[in-house]
């Protein structure tokens, strides 16, 4: 169709972009992760000390574990919210489908920061939620544990990433040919049996994609813990941020980044394999 030289020519900008803004920075960071810093100067002596620190210093792996726990909670909650929503919209929303779909999408156009600050207003000591509880005389003083906690981080991230879980699930549900659903009922399967034996298996690729989105995006999030996490809600990205900033330990920050990157890539690879395993095109 197109000549080789033409294909090469039009891919030059893209290749250039990928090299300059992706491969080069990653290479730089990869190199940094084997260096060290002393008295504010980065020393180019190659060693594994940073990786050793990451696994030996409880501060780092505890934050890593907490980050994974938060990401897993967000994933689970977003699935519990996003799947039924997608299912309802795809199968039972009738003529309101388009409108409801837009309503799910609209929050994505609102800045992440605005939505973060909204949670501050809701969960704070003088916030909407505490005010409401006191108004109903359920509590007599504000619950200070609401804000600045892992709970607040999970809440905010769930709010933000549920649409990301919803979208691929909705797409895969919409993809299920309706005659299949009719055939299932025709063969005597109750709506419940049809869901578990037909719809759920056929929507697994979307479910896996959505779960991967939620988990990976939460894993690397640093704004939510910054806004509503407090000390007990610190996540690994905040550690990386401070290592690259105030703490000025780029090599250790780079090592943690590389670790997260490898972990994430492995996860994405696994998700892709699972999606392939469950797709039937």
């Amino acid at each position, binding site marked *: 169709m197109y000549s080789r030289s033409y294909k090469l020519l039009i891919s030059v900008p893209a290749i250039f972009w990928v090299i300059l803004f992706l491969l080069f920075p990653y290479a730089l960071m990869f190199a940094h992760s084997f260096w060290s810093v002393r008295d504010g100067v980065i020393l180019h002596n190659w060693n594994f000390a940073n990786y050793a620190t990451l696994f030996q210093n409880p501060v780092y792996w505890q934050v890593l574990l907490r980050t994974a726990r938060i990401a897993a909670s967000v994933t689970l909650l977003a699935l519990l919210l996003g799947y039924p929503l997608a299912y309802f919209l795809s199968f039972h929303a009738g003529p309101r489908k388009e409108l409801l779909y837009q309503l799910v999408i609209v929050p994505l156009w609102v800045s992440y920061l605005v939505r973060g600050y909204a949670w501050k207003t809701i969960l704070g000591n003088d916030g909407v939620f505490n005010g409401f509880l006191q108004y109903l005389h359920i509590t007599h003083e504000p619950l200070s544990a609401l804000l600045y906690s892992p709970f607040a981080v999970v809440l905010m991230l769930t709010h933000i990433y549920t649409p990301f879980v919803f979208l691929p699930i909705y797409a895969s549900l919409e993809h299920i040919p309706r005659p299949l659903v*009719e*055939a299932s009922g*025709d*063969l*005597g*399967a109750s709506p419940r049996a049809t869901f578990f034996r037909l719809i759920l298996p056929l929507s697994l690729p979307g479910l896996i994609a959505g779960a991967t989105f939620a988990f990976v995006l939460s894993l690397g999030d640093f704004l939510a813990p910054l806004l509503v996490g407090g000390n007990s809600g610190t996540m690994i990205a905040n550690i990386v941020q401070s290592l690259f900033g105030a703490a000025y330990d780029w090599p250790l920050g780079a090592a943690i980044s590389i670790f997260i990157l490898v972990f994430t890539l492995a996860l994405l690879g696994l998700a892709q394999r699972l999606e392939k395993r469950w797709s039937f095109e």
Partner: protein
Amino acid sequence: MTTAPSTPSKAAAGRPLLDVRAVSKRFGAREVLRTVSLEIASGEFLTLLGESGSGKTTLLRLVAGFEQPTAGEIWMHGERLDPLPPYKRRVNTVFQHYALFPHLKVSENVAYGLAAAGTQKAEIATRVKDALAMVRMEEYATAKPNQLSGGQQQRVALARALVNRPKLLLLDEPLSALDANLRKEMQSELKSLQREVGITFLFVTHDQEEAMALSDRIALLRHGALEQVASPREIYARPATAYTAQFIGQTNLFRVTVSNGVAQCEAFSFPCSLPDGPALLSVRPEAIAIEAGAQQPPDAIRFSAVIRQQIYSGATELLELRTVNGTTLRARIPSGESLSGAHDFVFSSADAIPVRE
């Protein structure tokens, strides 16, 4: 599979298996079915025939339970069917594009209905095996649907439906996605399969030849209403309406005026037993022959016409004729030599069937 007595006599069946009573269906302002009443006898092969948009698929979907009638009732074996959801009806469907479950193996597809009904594992295994043997697909038991050809998917879809031993099998244009040769082959297979299992078939098609080849009776639908319900022979030989005569096979229509037992049209006149007034007569092309000069029966009607075109189709050929007063007619005659010019033609007045508009 258990073999019920095949070809049960319709008169002896007494109560019909399926009883569609004055069913109407609207989609918004569109009236898709208008007070359709239809009875299907046990063991019968009945075909719903019609153009696209005639409501044949909608009627099938009402029986399956995928749609609800706007008015009327559907009964099966003395049980009211239309309030029941599809999964509570002892009816199974073969879908137009088969609708096989892509994530399940062939054997799992066939087992789906039995598993949903809570059948014992061992029984499922034997029945699935038998059903696959019946459609000659045993060796594909572990294949996935996307590894099968259209004809093979068709067989699996049949096995998946029949394994549940439904009282009534619904088939929604099941052969339309197959190519011509395979379709002919599947037609005869379907017919013998139906005799073998003795299950009542309600078959939907837009292909009149297919309907003629397979059915015990044909229900011809037009704009959501039943035009005629009769056996293929009867519907072809004695069409009730001009539409039926034209839809099933080809025909020549004559608008005649009857007075005192003589039918008169532009081309000719002949004695007939119709009441006085205007009438419409259908004469099949094969009823018209070239006058050979030999003696003709007393009721023969003669006319002369010019052969405009001769279309050869193997054993027979179709002649397009123009009579002296400009009427175009078609005659189907046994193939012979090439013909042209004016000839005398003849048909028996017994072959002129009065039809309604």
